[in-house]
């Protein structure tokens, strides 16, 4: 067992890569690339499930750690590990991968080899971001995750892929330049890229305060664009319109939010604390702004983009409220948002493939013809707007509770308003797509409801949403383990919960 525990994270990184190589080698016949990608992603998902099964909840710190020298000079270590914070996020990436394959099964009709090769490389890059504990390795995967995404958006975009790809790439690539400088500066100061060593060095207060502030800001900026945080969200609408469904479900949120928790707050607690009020304000602004814009969209991809902005802002609020309740809620909400978004994108992708339009007012009255699609869409929408007994409720409740008790009542009330608006645009979307009189578009095609593969994915997802709604204790203890800071940070948390200034 120890041998497996030692190599499990490396396997999780390598299996998708091996799958990518295999896909690149086989001929593009009999949907071979699709099958290989499906088997690979399912196998990887299986491997990620090994983690929670053998994760020791009684221990704090990182588990399944591998720490080997990779490059001698500068000292870059292949250092990977998971803790309560990243554990379930890794499983989430593993879960979304086969869903992405299923969503691409019929949607990708040409150049399937290229698509699935890049898709699998993208998986490795995302796993790498969540697993790396060496800042250089982390940065490597962070940058690598942009490339397949940009190429896939360019090649498989719906209308103007290359333009959206360029926008996406530049928006996320340019902020990582200051990030790299900050990492290099930390290395020049401390001689290490290692996360825990850096955490210790920074906490001990021997680094010059001024540059440290700039370094923290560089980290925050790179992550805030990637999430995105209002007003850095310029790329999200075009990207959601153009990205293939399998990538749209993973493009926003997770990587940036996790990085904020791990590498911004984790490394620079004092600086994060100083920036927190600004971010809380921006988060609430993004929450309301995204919700208002989502209300007036006519294209459902754009609506999903602004809905994502709104929901991700809520999570950002939970993170920068700097309360433990808020952190628990934030991580839980990342998981829930990933699952729900996966389901919604899969369903919207099915609609788009069949009716070839994303104009909402072209649809209408689909519920009678496609009852299963309608049912799953309603369930996912309700989970998204935070109906009690479904996953979204737990996360949103914890975030709002944390904000209400730990930050300020005003922000919490404003955020609640955003959540209400969220219910409005989602339910209105459901109504316009599935109910009302049957539109000409709906009548033009024979009814063809969800089939085998899609149902095989959607049933478990729906079940998962309900389980996440009623039994959050399956996840929360582990998340709390990760969200609880290491001992050296306890003092800072006490201060923050009492609302006092930094030392």
């Amino acid at each position, binding site marked *: 067992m120890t041998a497996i525990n030692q190599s499990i994270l490396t396997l999780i990184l390598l299996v998708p890569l091996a799958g990518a190589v295999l896909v690149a080698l086989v001929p593009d016949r009999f949907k071979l690339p699709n099958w290989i990608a499906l088997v690979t992603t399912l196998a990887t998902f299986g491997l990620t499930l090994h983690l929670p099964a053998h994760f020791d909840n009684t221990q704090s710190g990182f588990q399944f750690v591998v720490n080997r020298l990779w490059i001698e000079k500068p000292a870059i270590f292949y250092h990977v590990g998971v803790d309560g914070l990243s554990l379930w996020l890794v499983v989430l990436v593993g879960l979304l991968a086969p869903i992405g394959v299923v969503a691409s099964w019929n949607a990708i009709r040409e150049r399937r080899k290229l698509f699935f090769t890049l898709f699998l490389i993208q998986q490795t890059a995302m796993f790498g971001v969540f697993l790396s504990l060496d800042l250089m390795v982390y940065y490597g995967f962070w940058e690598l995750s942009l490339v397949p995404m940009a190429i896939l958006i360019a090649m498989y975009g719906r209308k103007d892929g290359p333009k959206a790809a360029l926008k996406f790439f*530049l928006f996320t690539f340019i902020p990582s330049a200051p990030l790299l400088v900050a990492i*290099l500066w930390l290395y020049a100061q401390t*001689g290490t890229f290692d996360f825990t060593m850096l955490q210790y060095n920074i906490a*001990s207060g021997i680094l010059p305060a001024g540059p440290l502030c700039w370094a923290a800001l560089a980290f925050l900026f790179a992550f805030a664009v990637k999430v995105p945080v209002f007003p850095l969200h310029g790329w999200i609408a075009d990207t959601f319109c153009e990205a293939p469904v399998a990538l749209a479900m993973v493009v926003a949120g997770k990587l940036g939010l996790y990085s904020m928790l791990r590498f911004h707050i984790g490394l620079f607690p004092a600086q994060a604390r100083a920036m927190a009020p600004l971010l809380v304000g921006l988060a609430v602004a993004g929450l309301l702004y995204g919700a208002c814009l989502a209300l007036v969209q006519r294209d459902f991809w754009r609506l999903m983009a602004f809905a994502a902005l709104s929901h991700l802002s809520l999570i950002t609020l939970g993170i920068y409220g700097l309360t433990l309740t808020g952190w628990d809620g934030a991580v839980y909400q990342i998981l829930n948002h990933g699952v729900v978004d996966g389901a919604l994108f899969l369903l919207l992708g099915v609609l788009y493939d069949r009716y070839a339009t994303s104009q909402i007012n072209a649809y209408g009255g689909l519920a009678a013809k496609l009852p299963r699609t309608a049912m799953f869409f309603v369930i996912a929408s309700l989970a998204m707007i935070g109906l009690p007994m479904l996953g979204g409720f737990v996360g949103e409740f914890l975030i709002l509770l944390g904000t209400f008790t730990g930050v300020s009542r005003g922000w919490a009330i404003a955020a609640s308003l955003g959540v209400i608006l969220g219910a409005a645009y989602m339910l209105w979307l459901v109504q316009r797509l599935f109910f009302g009189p049957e539109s000409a578009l709906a009548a033009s095609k024979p009814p063809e409801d969800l089939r085998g593969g899609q149902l095989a994915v959607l049933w478990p997802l729906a079940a998962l949403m309900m389980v996440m709604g009623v039994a959050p204790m399956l996840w929360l203890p582990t998340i709390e383990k990760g969200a609880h800071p290491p001992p050296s940070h306890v003092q800072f948390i006490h201060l923050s919960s009492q609302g006092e200034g930094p030392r």
Partner: protein
Amino acid sequence: MNPVSDIFRILPEVILTLTGVLVMLIDATLPPHCARRSLGWVAAFGTTLALWSSLFQLSLPEGTGFFGTVETSAFTVFFHVLICGIVLVALLLSLDTLPEKSHHQGEFYALIVFGAVGMCLLTGAVELLLVFIALEISSIATYVLAGYRKNTARGPEAAIKYFLLGSFATAFLLYGIAMIFGATGTTQIYEIARLVPAALNHAFILAGLGLMLVGILFKVSAAPFHVWTPDVYEGSPTPVVALMSTVPKAAAFALLLRVVYEMLPTLRPVWQPLLWVVAVLSMTVGNLAALRQQNVKRMLAYSAIAHAGYLLAAFAGLGPSGIAAASFYIAAYAAMNVGIFAVVTLVSGYDEKLPLINDYRGLIYRSPLLGSLLIFFLLSLVGIPFTGGFFGKFYSFAAAVGGGAVWLAIIGLLNSGLAAAYYLRLALATAQRPDEQTSAAPAPRVGAAVGAALLLAVAATLVLGIVPGDVFHAAESGAHTLQAPPAEIIAPVNTVVTQSQP
């Protein structure tokens, strides 16, 4: 007195010279109608032999030969191997892409090999007059190669432009050498390094340094001495551009390292700000100009200028760390640049029917292999992790940060973000669906020799991107053989962790 025979000190150069002479002799004895492609294989074989012989030089004790004019050390071996490797790739590339009918193929291969002799000699020379001669050997070969397509309008223009401006630059270099000789009374680099701190005529030395820098910075196409680059690249045959955008620059950078770190380390306060300015100018000018280019070769020419800027950022690093970073960057840059020009040669063809970015539209549909390779090399030029370009930038900017020039690293990295825009324009054109016009273009054929060339370039770029440790180690041991500045301040690495906590 010297335990190592002098001839071993210049073994690669000797082998390359013999190869060049052999190629010319065979060329002269072959009947005129006979195909001369096989001469390329002779040249490639000789270059491979020279590469092995430079590796053999590693086993020699470090030292000089021929009355202290030529050095063999880890530094020279690093650059010899690099130069021979890139020349080999360029030869393989030319083998498949030069037109069959050309009667001047023999000259072409011989000139490439003779150019390599000059560049190898340049990296090993520790005597300024030999430096000058070596530079001339390599330059003259390159001038002729630039005008190889003499039947086109742009070919002779490129050659004349390159020749005139290049001669000027060399004259500057020579004048600088004369000034330094006037001030110190010697042209031996170690001697100069020893004499400079005590020299009376300081103004002469400063003027000499300035003039030499002009000459060298022209050769590496750094701004503001870069104006020849786009025109020459556009007019020269693409296989020649693959060569001359990489190896002469590598050799010239080796010379620059020798001049500033070994010959005049005590003048660091003088040359450091100059190189900062040139670095920032090169990056910014190169990238801004590249943004507007429609011609792929011109775009890559400006990209080469920008890369010279990133490379010069490494010179902000102190002592061995800066030298090693610069050496590594040269290797990474050479590997990816020769690769991308190989792809460009194949796509646009020898007569360059498809020179524009728009002509690359849908390349990945026409030829999945070349399309993917082009995107791969472009990503490496952008500096995406797990490619050589990333670690090149990484070491270079890390050296700058370690040397205290954080601002330079920030400017550099923001510039590389800007650069991503034009590299991606080409990459995205490649990935775009082909339109009427470009889908009619034939898929380029990838022959065995050029396939080997591409394989070498890809392998080198990947190795430098995934396991750069060994190459960096070689660059570092090379760096240590250049005499380190006497009053060196080591960056405070590894000191913080061990400090006692308050």
